[in-house]
C-alpha cells in the first residue's frame, strides 16, 4: 500500500502536465463555441436543471446523477462512500450495507434515516432499511442528498447520525427513453429502462432496473460453527468454513411518477429474490439459506406554493408495504454434535404496513422571517409475524424438534404490534441583520409505544464575505427503539424490553464554506456530539450506553483545467465509549478520499477514485489485532457519442486487488465472543462493462 499512493498522485500529476502542455484534448471545437456560447461553466450551468431550495441547511452533501454516472457506480453504497465522514461497512447477515456516519456504528444501523423522495423506508422490526434489501440501483436517481448530523427537528425519528434522501428522476430529466445493459464479474448482469414523457397533461416518469448477480465469493476461514465444532469435538466438524461468502441476489426496482400542476403521484416496487445469507444470519456460513422481500410504496403529494397569500402548503399521504421472508440454515447440517442432521433451520418472516399523513406549510408574511409549521399522523403496523423452525431453545444447547414447526404468538421471535406517531414542528428562519440568519426549530413527537420526545435545532449562518460562509449548528435527535429491542421474544441473547427510552444525541458543529476562486472550493466541518441512552442487549435491551465524539471533515472541489476536475476529502473522528473509556470500535478514525474526472478527448473520459480507510479499532475486550487499513482504487473509462445515441463504459473496481476487510463483531455476552475472527472479506478486483442508449 505504501507505494501505491505516490503512484496514483504521480499519474495525476502526469495527467495535469499533459493537459497543460496540450498533449491532451485540444479544445478546438470548444474554442469556437467559447466565443459564442461562453465557457464550459456557462454551458453546463445553462443546460442545468432547476435548482431546488434545500429544506435543511445543515451540513449537506449533494451528489448528482452526472457524478454518479462518472463514478461508474452500480449501487448507492458505492456513491455514499465518497461523502466525507461516511463509511459503508457490511454486516455478516446478508452482507447488508451499514452506513457509518461520524463514528456512530451499530450492527443494524437504525441511526441513519433513509428516505426515498422524502418518504422514510424505516422498518419497525430493526429500525433500519430492513433485511434482504442490499442497497438499490442508481440509474433512476436524480440526486442523493446526505445530511451529516441530526435532522430530527425536521425529519423526526432516526435522523440521528445522518439522513440520506434519494431523489428520483422526473419526466423532464429522463426526456425520452434511456436504456442500458451491463455485465461483469461475479456473473453480474444488469439491465435498465427509463422513460420520461407526457400523457394527457401528466408528466410521466417510469423506470425499471433489473439485477442478477452471484456476488463476490471471498473466503471466510472460520465462522461461528467453527467455534462450536471445537466445543463439540470429537464429533465431526459441521462448519462450512473455510468457504466463500454467499452474496448473490436478484433484484427488480421499478417506479412510476406522475405529475400534473400541484399533484404528484408515485408508485414503486422493490423486489429481492434468492437473497443469499452473506456470512450467515448468525455468522455461520449458510449456502442454502435465502431471503426474499417486497417493498411497495405509493404516495400522493399536493404542493401549492401559494395556496393563500404568503402561504405555501405541502400535503402528502404515503403508504409503504414491506414484507420479508427468510429461510435460514442458522447452523449447518451436523451442528451440535450431529443433533441437527439438516442444520438448525429458522424461517422468520415479517410483514409491515405504514400509513403516513404529513402536512407542511411555509408562511412568509412576516418580513425577514420564513416560518415553517407542520404536523402529521403515522400508523405503522407490524401486522404479521410468521415463523417456522426446527429448534427451540430450552437450555444451553438448542433442542431439535424433529421437523420444521410453525410458531406464533408468544412463541414467535417477535410479536404483531403497531405504533402511532403524531408530531408537530415549528421553525423560523430569521434574517435579523444583513448577512446573518438564525434558524430555530422544534419538533415534538408522540409515540404510542414509548412516549414523547422534543427535539430542537439551531443554526446561525453568517455570509462573512463574497467567498466565505460560516455556520454554527446545534441539533438534538432521537432514535426510536425498534420492535426487536422492545418486543423480541424467545431469543435468550436478545430479549425485548417494552420500557425503553429513545436514544438521544446532541451535536454541535462549526462549518466553513470557502470559495478560493471560481474553480476551487473548500469546506471544513468541526463537530462534537454526545450520544446517550444507547440501547444494547444485555441480554435484555437496556438504555445503558453513552458515547461522545468529535472530529472534522475537510473537503475540496477543484476544476483544475477545462478537462480535469479533482475532488477529495479527509475525515477524522475520535469517539469514546463512556462506559469502557475506550475508543469506539469499528468506525474508521481517518478516511481519505480523492477523485479525478478527466476528459481525455472529444468522446473519452476517465474517472478514478482512491478511498483510504484507516484505524478501525476493536472493542476494548477484543484481543484480535487491529483490522488492517485498506486503500482501494477504482477506474471507469467511458466512450460517448457512439452511433445511434449509444455510449459505453468499462469499470475496474479495486484495481490493485487490495484485501478489503470490514470488521466482524465482538459479542461480550456470547461464549464465543468473536464468531468470525478473520473479519468480513470484501470484493477483490472486479470488472464491469456497460452499454447505454438514448432514444
Amino acid at each position, binding site marked *: 500500500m505504501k507505494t501505491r499512493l505516490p503512484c496514483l498522485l504521480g499519474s495525476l500529476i502526469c495527467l495535469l502536465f499533459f493537459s497543460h502542455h496540450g498533449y491532451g484534448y485540444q479544445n478546438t471545437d470548444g474554442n469556437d463555441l467559447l466565443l459564442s456560447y461562453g465557457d464550459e461553466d456557462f454551458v453546463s*450551468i445553462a443546460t442545468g436543471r432547476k435548482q431546488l431550495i434545500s429544506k435543511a441547511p445543515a451540513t449537506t452533501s449533494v451528489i448528482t446523477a452526472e457524478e454518479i454516472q462518472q463514478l461508474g457506480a452500480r449501487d448507492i453504497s458505492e456513491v455514499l462512500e465518497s461523502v466525507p465522514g461516511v463509511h459503508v461497512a457490511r454486516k455478516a447477515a446478508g452482507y447488508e450495507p451499514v452506513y457509518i456516519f461520524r463514528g456512530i456504528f451499530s450492527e443494524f444501523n437504525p441511526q441513519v434515516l433513509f428516505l426515498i423522495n422524502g418518504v422514510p423506508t424505516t422498518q419497525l422490526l430493526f429500525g433500519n432499511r430492513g433485511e434482504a434489501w442490499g442497497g438499490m440501483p442508481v440509474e433512476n436517481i436524480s440526486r442523493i442528498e446526505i445530511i451529516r448530523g441530526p435532522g430530527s427537528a425536521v425529519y423526526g425519528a432516526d435522523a440521528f447520525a445522518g439522513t440520506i434522501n434519494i431523489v428520483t428522476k422526473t419526466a423532464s430529466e429522463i426526456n425520452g427513453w434511456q436504456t442500458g445493459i451491463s455485465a461483469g464479474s461475479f456473473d453480474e448482469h444488469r439491465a435498465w429502462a427509463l422513460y420520461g414523457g407526457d400523457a394527457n397533461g401528466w408528466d410521466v416518469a417510469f423506470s425499471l432496473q433489473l439485477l442478477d448477480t452471484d456476488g463476490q465469493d471471498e473466503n471466510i476461514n472460520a465462522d461461528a460453527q467453527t467455534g462450536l465444532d471445537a466445543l463439540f469435538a470429537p464429533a465431526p466438524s459441521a462448519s462450512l468454513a473455510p468457504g466463500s461468502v454467499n452474496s448473490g441476489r436478484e433484484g427488480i426496482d421499478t417506479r412510476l411518477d406522475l405529475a400534473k400542476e400541484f399533484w404528484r403521484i408515485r408508485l414503486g416496487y422493490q423486489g429481492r429474490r434468492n437473497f443469499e445469507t452473506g456470512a450467515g444470519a448468525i455468522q455461520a456460513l449458510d449456502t442454502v439459506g435465502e431471503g426474499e422481500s417486497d417493498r411497495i410504496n405509493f404516495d400522493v403529494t399536493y404542493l401549492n406554493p401559494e395556496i393563500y397569500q404568503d402561504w405555501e402548503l405541502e400535503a402528502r399521504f404515503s403508504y409503504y408495504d414491506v414484507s420479508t421472508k427468510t429461510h435460514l440454515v442458522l447452523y449447518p447440517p451436523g451442528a451440535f454434535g450431529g443433533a441437527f442432521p439438516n442444520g438448525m433451520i429458522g424461517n422468520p418472516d415479517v410483514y409491515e404496513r405504514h400509513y403516513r399523513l404529513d402536512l407542511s406549510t411555509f408562511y412568509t408574511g412576516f418580513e425577514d422571517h420564513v416560518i415553517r409549521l407542520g404536523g402529521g399522523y403515522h400508523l405503522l403496523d407490524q401486522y404479521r409475524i410468521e415463523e417456522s423452525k426446527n429448534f427451540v431453545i430450552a437450555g444451553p444447547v438448542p433442542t431439535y424438534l424433529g421437523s420444521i414447526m410453525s410458531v406464533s404468538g408468544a412463541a414467535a421471535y417477535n410479536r404483531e404490534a403497531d405504533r402511532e406517531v403524531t408530531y408537530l414542528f415549528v421553525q423560523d428562519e430569521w434574517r435579523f441583520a444583513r448577512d446573518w440568519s438564525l434558524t430555530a426549530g422544534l419538533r415534538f413527537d408522540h409515540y404510542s409505544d414509548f412516549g414523547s420526545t422534543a427535539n430542537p435545532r439551531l443554526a446561525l449562518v453568517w455570509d462573512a464575505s463574497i467567498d466565505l460562509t460560516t455556520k454554527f449548528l446545534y441539533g438534538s435527535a432521537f432514535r426510536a427503539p425498534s420492535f426487536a429491542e422492545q418486543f423480541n421474544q424467545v431469543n435468550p441473547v436478545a430479549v425485548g424490553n417494552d420500557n425503553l427510552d429513545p436514544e438521544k444525541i446532541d451535536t454541535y458543529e462549526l462549518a466553513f464554506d470557502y470559495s478560493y476562486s471560481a474553480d476551487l472550493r473548500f469546506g471544513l466541518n468541526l463537530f462534537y456530539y454526545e450520544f446517550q441512552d444507547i440501547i444494547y442487549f444485555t441480554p435484555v435491551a437496556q438504555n445503558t450506553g453513552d458515547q461522545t465524539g468529535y472530529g472534522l471533515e475537510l473537503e475540496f472541489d477543484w476544476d483544475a483545467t477545462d478537462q480535469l476536475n479533482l475532488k477529495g476529502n479527509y475525515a477524522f473522528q475520535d469517539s469514546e465509549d463512556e462506559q469502557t473509556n475506550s475508543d469506539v470500535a469499528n468506525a474508521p478514525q481517518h478516511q481519505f478520499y480523492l477523485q479525478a474526472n478527466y476528459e481525455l478527448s472529444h468522446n473519452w473520459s476517465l474517472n478514478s477514485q482512491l478511498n483510504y480507510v484507516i484505524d478501525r479499532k476493536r472493542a476494548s475486550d477484543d484481543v484480535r489485532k487491529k483490522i488492517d487499513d485498506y486503500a482501494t482504487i477504482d477506474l471507469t473509462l467511458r466512450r460517448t457519442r457512439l452511433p445511434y445515441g449509444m455510449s459505453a463504459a468499462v469499470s475496474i473496481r479495486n484495481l490493485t486487488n487490495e484485501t478489503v476487510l470490514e470488521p466482524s463483531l465482538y459479542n461480550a455476552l456470547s461464549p464465543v465472543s468473536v464468531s468470525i475472527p478473520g473479519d468480513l472479506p470484501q470484493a477483490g478486483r472486479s470488472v464491469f462493462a456497460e452499454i447505454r442508449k438514448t432514444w
Partner: protein
Amino acid sequence: MKIAIKRILQAILLGGVLLLSLGAYAQGPSLAVLYPDVREPYRSIFQSILDGIKDAANGKVRSFPLRKNDDPDMLNSWIAKNKPEVVISLGSLAKEFLPYLSPERKVVSGAALFSNSDIEQGMIGISLSPSPQKLFVKLKKLAPEVRRISVVYHPDSNGWLIDHAKQVAEEMGLVLAAMPAHGVREAARLYQQILAKQENGFDAIWLLQDDPTLDEIGLLPRLLSEAWNHEFIVFSSNPSHVKRGALFSLFPDNAQMGKSLARKAGLLAKGQSKNVEPLKDLLIAVNIRTADHLTLKISRAEQRDFDLIFPSK
C-alpha cells in the same frame, strides 16, 4: 344502419382530406439547419435548438453537422441538392461558412453572437445576447429602486446591442450610462470610475456576455468582491457570473430559441424580418445569497419561478 355507417365514413374521409389540404396551405418554408458537430455539453444545446426548430417549422427540416475543416463546396452541394428555402445556421462555426454560400441564399443565424460588422454586412438572425428589455424589466422587479445602469462595452462587438439598450432604457425611464472601451485596460479604468460613483440602491452594473473588454480572470473577481463589500448591484448576460456572485442573469432557453429561429425563417421566406434581434427566449438564474446580502425581498413564490438558483448547496 348500413347507410348511416357509410355516411359517417364519408364524413371522416372528407374531413381528413380537408385537414390535409389545410395542412398543405399551411406549409412553411423548407429549412436546412447547419450546426457544429461537437461534444457534450455543447451537443445537447444544439440538439435542443434543433428540436425547437423542428417543432415550430411547418415544412421539411434537414440538418447538417459541420466540422471545422469541412469543405465549403461539399456543404454547397448538399444545400443545392436539398433546395431549402431558408438556411438556419447555428453557432459561430456555421457563421464562418456563410460567406461561401450563394448570396441569394436566405440565411437566419442563431446560437451565436453578432458584431457590428456582421450587422453592417446585412446578417439576419437572433443573437445569444439577452434582450435588454427583458433584462431591465427583471432588474426592476428584483430591485425596484434602480434608476441608472452602467455598462462597459466594446463598440465593435456590442455597439448595436447598446444602441438598442439605450432606446429601451429611455422608454422605461432608466438612465443607461454606456461607456465604450477598446481594451481591457481602458475598461478597468472605467469600472473604477463606475464603482466610485455608485449610489446604493439606485445604481446597477451590467456585465455583457463575452465582451472583449471584460477581464474575467483578473478584473471580474475584484469587481464582484467590491460590489459585495459595498452592496452594489451587478447583473449579467452570462449566468456563470451569477455563480460567482452577480445578482442575476438571463440565459437562452434553447428549445424556445429554436422555435423563434424557425418562425424568423418563415418570415424571411416571405421577405420580412431582416434584422438581428437580441434573444427573447430566456431563463433566469439568480444568486439568492447575493440577493439576501443586498436585502432584496424575494418571496418563495418568486423563487419558484427562477430557473436556476445559486448557491446550489
